[in-house]
């Protein structure tokens, strides 16, 4: 790809002088600088020269590789099925309008609302249920790792969610405090009867987070004791030890919903994995087309900051969720490279000819 001259300018001529010098002078220590390739700046070096001729093939190769990848990505992304339901309840017609209006974070009871929707096409493989939010620095990772001292005296970074009524907050900090606590349930509606869709809550968080980074203080036995003397975050309904009443292994800091939440999103519009709908053993689609109802227990107020809440049902491919960006980008870059290759080829040829003709009169 590059025209290269390998230039070994090693001490070709100098060798003859040096030994004679050393031998003759004997022990006389000369201040004469050492004749090493490095000191004389004569290290053998590869001197690549980029020319149109050498870069040309690279452009074509890049073009030829990128375009198929791009097409592949684009197709994959297009095949991913995604369905999005906004249940914030901004419009008066929206089923969650009332909840959104009346609910604030310090309401005692939750407000529920059901959002009906219809899937036109069946979802074949595992379906991942995300919640999306639009809207980050306060946490204590050593506390979350089960550190006892941090449990009792959380880091200063947790301010203002560090202490509550003289008790340390566990988990402390604003991020934990703002844990997404809507509960979402999905029902398949057949002939006006609702069949619940099984939502799996295992495997939504990174394995390493679940198993290494987040640890309960004093192991997993008897969380109530472990968290004694701490107070729940201000905006939470339940203490951290009772996040998941159904599965004792999913409580405390290692609650997967909590872990997912603690992996803060990068951008203000984000989605987080909520539940997984496992593919059925038989050949029926995971989610058949038809009518569904989303039951929301509306706990998480977003109106105050103009937030939106969505539920996204999506299948997943090897490249992750649906995102046409990569495919398009690859196709574009590939095409640009190919085009440039052609342009360079023309330039190269023209230049070569000119060069040749210019050489002749000489």
């Amino acid at each position, binding site marked *: 790809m590059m025209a290269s001259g390998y230039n070994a300018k090693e001490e070709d001529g100098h060798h003859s002088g040096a030994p004679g010098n050393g031998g003759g002078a004997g022990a006389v220590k*000369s201040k004469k*600088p050492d004749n090493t390739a490095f*000191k004389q700046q004569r*290290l*053998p*070096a590869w001197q690549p*020269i*980029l020319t*149109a001729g050498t*870069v040309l093939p690279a452009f074509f190769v890049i073009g030829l590789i990128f375009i198929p*990848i791009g097409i592949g990505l684009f197709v994959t992304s297009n095949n991913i099925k995604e369905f999005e339901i906004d249940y914030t309840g901004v419009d008066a017609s929206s089923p969650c309008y009332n909840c959104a209006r009346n609910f*604030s*974070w310090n309401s005692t009871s939750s407000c529920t609302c059901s959002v009906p929707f219809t899937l036109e096409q069946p979802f074949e493989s*595992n379906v991942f249920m995300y919640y999306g939010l639009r809207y*980050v620095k306060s946490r204590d*990772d*050593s506390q979350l*790792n089960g550190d006892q001292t941090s449990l009792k005296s959380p*880091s200063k*970074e947790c*301010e*203002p969610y560090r202490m509550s009524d003289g008790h340390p907050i566990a988990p402390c900090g*604003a991020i934990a405090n*703002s844990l997404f606590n809507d509960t979402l349930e999905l029902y398949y509606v057949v002939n006006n009867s609702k069949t619940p869709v099984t939502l799996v809550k295992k*495997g*939504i*968080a990174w394995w*390493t*987070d679940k198993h290494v*980074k987040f640890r309960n203080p004093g192991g997993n036995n008897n969380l109530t004791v472990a968290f004694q003397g701490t107070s729940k975050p201000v*905006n939470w309904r339940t203490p951290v030890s009772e996040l998941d009443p159904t599965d004792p292994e999913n409580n405390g800091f290692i609650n997967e919903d909590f872990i*997912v939440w603690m*992996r*803060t*999103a*990068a*951008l203000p519009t*984000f989605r*987080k*994995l909520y539940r*997984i709908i496992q593919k059925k053993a038989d050949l029926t689609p995971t989610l058949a087309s038809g009518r569904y109802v989303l039951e929301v227990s509306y706990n998480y*107020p977003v109106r*105050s*900051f103009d937030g939106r809440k969505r539920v996204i049902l*999506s299948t*997943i*491919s090897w*490249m*992750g*969720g*649906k*995102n046409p*960006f*990569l495919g398009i*980008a*690859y196709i574009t*870059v590939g095409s*640009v490279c190919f085009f440039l290759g052609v342009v360079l080829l023309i*330039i190269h040829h023209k230049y070569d000819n000119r*060069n040749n003709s210019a050489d002749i009169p000489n």
Partner: protein
Amino acid sequence: MLRRRLNRLLGGDERRVDSRTIYVGHQPSPTEAFIPPKFCDNRIVSSKYTVWNFLPKNLFEQFRRIANFYFLIIFLVQVIVDTPTSPVTSGLPLFFVITVTAIKQGYEDWLRHKADNEVNKNLVTVLEDGHRMRKESEKIKVGDVVEVDEDETFPCDLILLQSTRDDDTCFVTTASLDGESNHKTHYTVPETEKDLESLNATIECEQPQPDLYKFVGRMYIYKNDPEPAIRSLGPENLLLKGATLKNTQKICGVAVYTGMETKMALNYQGKSQKRSAVEKSINAFLLVYLCILVSKALVCTTLKYVWQSKPGQDEPWYNQKTQREKDTNLYLKMFTDFLSFMVLFNFIIPVSMYVTVEMQKFLGSFFITWDRDFFDPEIQEGALVNTSDLNEELGQVEYVFTDKTGTLTQNNMEFIECCIDGFQYKYRDADTELDGFSVTDGPLSKMHEKAGKEREELFLRALCLCHTVQVKEPTGLCQDQQNNLMDSLEGLMVDGGPPPQEQRGFIASSPDEVALVKGAMRYGFTFLGLESKKMKIKNRNNDIEMYELLHVLNFDPVRRRMSVIVQTKSGDKLLFCKGADSSIFPRVRQEEVEKIRVHVERNATEGYRTLCVAYKKLSINEYASADEGLQAARLALQDREEKLMAVYNQVETGMTLIGATAVEDRLQEEAAETMEALQGAGIKVWVLTGDKMETAKSTCYACRLFQRGTELLELTVRTLEDGVRKREERLHELLLEYHKKAVQDAPPIKPSVSRGWSRANQDYGFIIDGASLSLVFNSLESNSSRYKNLFLQICQNCTTVLCCRMAPLQKAQIVKMVKNSKGSPITLSIGDGANDVSMILEAHVGIGIKGKEGRQAVRNSDYAIPKLKHLKKLLLGHGHLYYVRIAHLVQYFFYKNLCFILPQFLYQFFCGYSQQPLYDAAYLTMYNICFTSMPILAYSLLEQHICVELLLDNATLYRGIAKNAMLRWVPFLYWTVLGVFHGLLFFFGVRYLFGNPALQDNGQVFGNWSYGTIVFTVLVFTVTLKLALDTRHWTWINHFVIWGSLAFYVFFSFFWGGIIWPFLKQQRLYFVFANMLSSVSAWLVIILLILLSLLPDILLVVLRKPCGPHSRQRKAGESGAGGSQSPRSSARPLLMRTFSDESNTVA
């Protein structure tokens, strides 16, 4: 200076301000009460620090740099204010920078201390109460009587009291002070007692002042009489520190000025730290980036408060304010936020750039020391680097100011050839020496026979007689010592080689005369000396001839000739005259002139110093009248000079021309080639010398600084004293005339290619001497600046400027003038003696030559090289490379930090201006220190975009980087745009990918740290590969460092994310990197973004490349063109080469 001023202030009431009183030998004067006066000791201090003040002073110096100061502020802000990043991120690099710099500067100052000590601890002999004491030089006090032996330098300024010579004189050479290597006679104070012990005297003299040639004082000698005898003292009684005693066994003198008050020290200039132009560019860029930084912080702060003013955003339910936050004043909060943003973005100013630049300079300078091409086998030394701060400046030189004596020339005069009656005689080698004289087998001799034997001998006798040379008296030392002395003399006289019996020391006020006498000696006529008015000559037949010396008609620069009148044994009175052709030709019979003129002109163009020799037989009448006239004129009290001149002119007429001589002031090896290369590189060469104009001019011709076609514009005492008008008027007129010629009428100079070689363009050479220069500088206030301006403009339009008869400070003045002229060109001074020190210090780059004249120039220089010829490689090779390296380094640093911090800035728009860092703290700290620092350091040490040989062969390549070409605003803009482009690409590329953060095939999502890590990975790879694209010279080190850095980054990220670090409060990156690599999408986006970022660069390289091979061809073509030029340029080199070869064989 300060001390002097203080002395004056404090001592004002006690002592007279404008004079000092010295008690010789500290003996109290009988009349006045003895108050031991306080003067400074004899210590020379060129170092900057002492052990005690090093730390505070060095820190102060370092924090005067805006960058360092800025980082200190940032650090303090981080310590005081609650900021998103820890103080360690900026504190650690800053500490590192300061320490490295301090160590470097400390080391350099230690070297200076060592050099100072060498001088200060030198042992000298001091007479105290009649005892001879060996003392360290620095302990000499004013009033001490110091004894100095032959060939020793004077340790301080002395008044000569006693000399071992009978005539109460001593000879001194001031070569290291003003470059004049001839022997000057100094006189003891008249009628002092021989017994110094019993001498009771005081000296009253002026306060120290820098003029070397001025001294006024009085000596009061107290004898038994109540009234002291008063002797007046002048410069002829003063022996200057730095000068060397010659041809006198021993002298005694009393110290009048010591240490920093000696005239030599006063001619030093204060050592100010030199800053390179690159550093100035860096500072300018820094300001730009500082502005960017401040505006970024301002934008963010403003937007933050605008955003927060919207309801619900300021204090959402999930993130309420602490009590303290609520209490603080809004403006204070805004200010704190502003500072936090500053801290967050402060990485845009690359702290590590300074470390890298320091390291690059420090390590890079070793390549100069290590270069074997700079090694001189004669002195067994290589180049020396005193300051590494100026490496790149070597690639930017526009003006070279060079000393003549010892720098351009070796200061060895050598008789080359002569012409008798139009026949050329050339002294060839040892074989033909037996025949005495040989005729060259050149075309001239083919046509003619030798001149008549009679004429030959007449000519040689003339050479032997017509001079004022003294034979060095044999000292009473044993043979060995004598030989040693001879050896040491040889350096000054003619180089050695002849058998011992021919070894003869000659002393003369002009080295030319010695060369001529030596020349005659080679041909069999030996001057044996002058004894009681009789000149003894041993002729070819080894007979002694005696001539009575009747009159010497001294040389003067207006007449430009000298004569002697001698009486032969037979009683004939002969006048021998030698002088410049222009002054001899009109005074001889014209028919002889033509055939000799040919030789003279040919010799002159070859750069030899030519003299014509004529004689005249005086009839008895003629002599009688001449004798009478001379006697009368000598006794005249008024207008003696004019009267003498009139007689001289009258006598020196109607002579017969015998022949001409050619003497070479041997140039340094390859001096002409070096000068030619410098001029080819677009560098203007100015010769600044203390020497005579004629000498300097011929050297310029020999170095090909003046060409045959060069029109010389002369502004010297000679041209100024043309008419009757005042000098000033004449000066005005001449300046205007020359200005018209050289500036106004000259065709507009095409900036690049044509200069130097264009024959069509008239080349101008400008000559000015010290007196005229001071006239230019010191004329009336209103005119001075105008004259200066005119002078400067003329000079800048001349290819070469020659300034002769310069005092050391005048040299510095000239350098300063050019340095401060429009466009502030980079100046370089090169010299070898103490007289060059001031200009070496004044110029941007000072280069010392490790010459014969002591070490002062070397000590005060920035770089020292053994020979002039090394300058070529130093500038064209090393300088060029250093400049390219450092320029690229600087631009690259700004670029890589811009595209590092731009995503950080953009991220603020997506995180509610919450100062959330995009990158992890480890990445923030390590980016500049570990991940991207080594490749650029390796690049900046090893890059050879064009190999050295090619750079040396094509001097024109040097012009490509002139005027700071790579650090101007256009390239800066290019890099900035590139940085912005990359930054935008990184951020938005990943941002679009994160449109759906579910990037893993298990549906799990990525968070903000993954986002940052992807951006950072792309960043590190792009920035490193960008450098790889720019690298033209891949040694294994480059490979190792570039690929190693990338590997290290990957390794580090794995490691950093692979462990729960107990000392960290936040485990932000735990498994982030590994998870990122498990996502195909992340891989794809990384590859895509890297490629896309590098695409414009590759395209640029390729599209520029149509000139790529082209330029290489052109290079080849250029060297071909260089070849085609070489006939012209090598026409003379060939000649030069022949005679330099010959002179080698002669030796």
